[in-house]
């Protein structure tokens, strides 16, 4: 049986841990609020750009390298977005397992499949499975800015236009609510316009007599590039918001579990203490009885 001092020490240590998890929860909640408003503001912008592209592409049959679909993609790039830091429940693990499965399932279909990691956890996971990525981008949660995303987007776009890759897929956690994320696998390039019209439902169809300043070909080139960087930025922001949400939920349940542990240990402690007091009293009284003789 554990003695009193041991239990007291354990209770104290669990209490300390609980304090940490509670603080982490608070921090995540604050960060989540910022990330959440960020993503909610970004979504309409991303949707509008795509709707505009779809409008122009449909009415003008514009050809553009970013739109051309290769029927038989050979070289494919997989972008895996995770977080740099752990302690976020199943956030990274679920995503990594999903990405790994995707990788294994599609390995036969494509001649070559390269990986690019955003966030340390994804790179670590795949390194343990002897799969190296072509690059890893870190420090996402600390400073997620449009220029950072645009830089990544530029590099992806270059490798796509130069003929390096036939398709670019993006795997990330989409932010649903503070406690729920959804695993998403999207084809980033070539740009998929099939969902665009849906996103824009309820609106009147695009007028054919539209005036363009400058010419539609020039506009769509600019728009597509912008759309692509916005998509990358959006995926990163979604992932950051989802990460903070997942961490908040994980820390919440950790705090609750610690409370449960403290409660049960305190009970054991009190029982033991009472037992030892009883034993002591018995010893004293029986000693006094013996002296009386």
């Amino acid at each position, binding site marked *: 049986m554990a003695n009193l001092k041991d239990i007291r020490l354990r209770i104290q240590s669990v209490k300390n841990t609980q304090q940490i998890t509670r603080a982490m929860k608070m921090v995540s909640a604050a960060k989540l609020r910022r990330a959440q408003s960020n993503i909610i503001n970004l979504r*309409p912008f991303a949707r509008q750009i795509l709707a505009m592209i779809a409008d122009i592409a449909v009415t003008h049959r514009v050809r553009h390298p970013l739109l051309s679909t290769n029927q038989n993609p050979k070289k494919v790039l997989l972008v895996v977005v995770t977080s740099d830091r752990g302690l976020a429940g199943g956030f990274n693990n679920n995503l990594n397992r999903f990405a790994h499965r995707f990788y294994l399932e599609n390995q036969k279909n494509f001649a070559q499949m390269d990986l690019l990691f955003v966030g340390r956890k994804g790179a670590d996971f795949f390194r343990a499975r002897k799969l190296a990525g072509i690059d890893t981008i870190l420090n996402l949660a600390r400073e997620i800015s449009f220029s950072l995303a645009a830089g990544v987007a530029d590099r992806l776009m270059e490798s796509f236009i130069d003929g390096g890759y036939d398709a670019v897929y993006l795997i990330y956690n989409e932010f649903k609510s503070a406690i729920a994320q959804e695993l998403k696998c999207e084809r980033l390039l070539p740009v998929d316009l099939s969902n665009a019209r849906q996103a824009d439902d309820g609106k009147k169809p695009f007028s054919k007599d539209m005036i363009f*300043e400058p010419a539609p070909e020039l506009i769509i080139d600019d728009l597509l590039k912008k759309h692509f960087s916005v998509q990358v930025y959006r995926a990163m922001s979604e992932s950051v918001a989802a990460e903070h949400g997942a961490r908040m939920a994980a820390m919440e349940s950790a705090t609750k579990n610690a409370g449960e542990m403290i409660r049960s240990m305190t009970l054991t402690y009190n029982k033991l203490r009472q037992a030892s007091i009883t034993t002591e009293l018995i010893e004293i009284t029986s000693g006094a009885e013996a002296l009386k003789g």
Partner: protein
Amino acid sequence: MFVLNLVTPDKRLVTDTEVEEVTVPGFKGQLDILPGHAPLLTTLATGILKYRIKDKVESVVVSWGYCQVNPEGVVVLAETAESLEEIDRARAEAALKVAKTKLLEPILQPDQIAKFQHKLARASARLAALENQ
């Protein structure tokens, strides 16, 4: 009257607001949009976007973006948009000075020239918006 939407990646500055008139810095110059305007899609230059609600005129400084005019309203997508209260005069003045001196330097890469010209345009648009309020 028609509906104006002004969206940037960071925020929705104007959402489904009924306005009488919108003036945007278009690709070919200042462009005034009144109800019943023909459908139009233009890129935006860096400059001041104005919209009028009843008799109140609001100014916003925008840079890079699109303006789409539909029968149902106007949608403006801008990369950055700042209302007058958000403009920091001292910073804009400093940026203007830096851009001006940089552009005078003899050895500049073409992309650097474009970058500083952009900065110059943005800083002067901000200051102009403050002057005209």
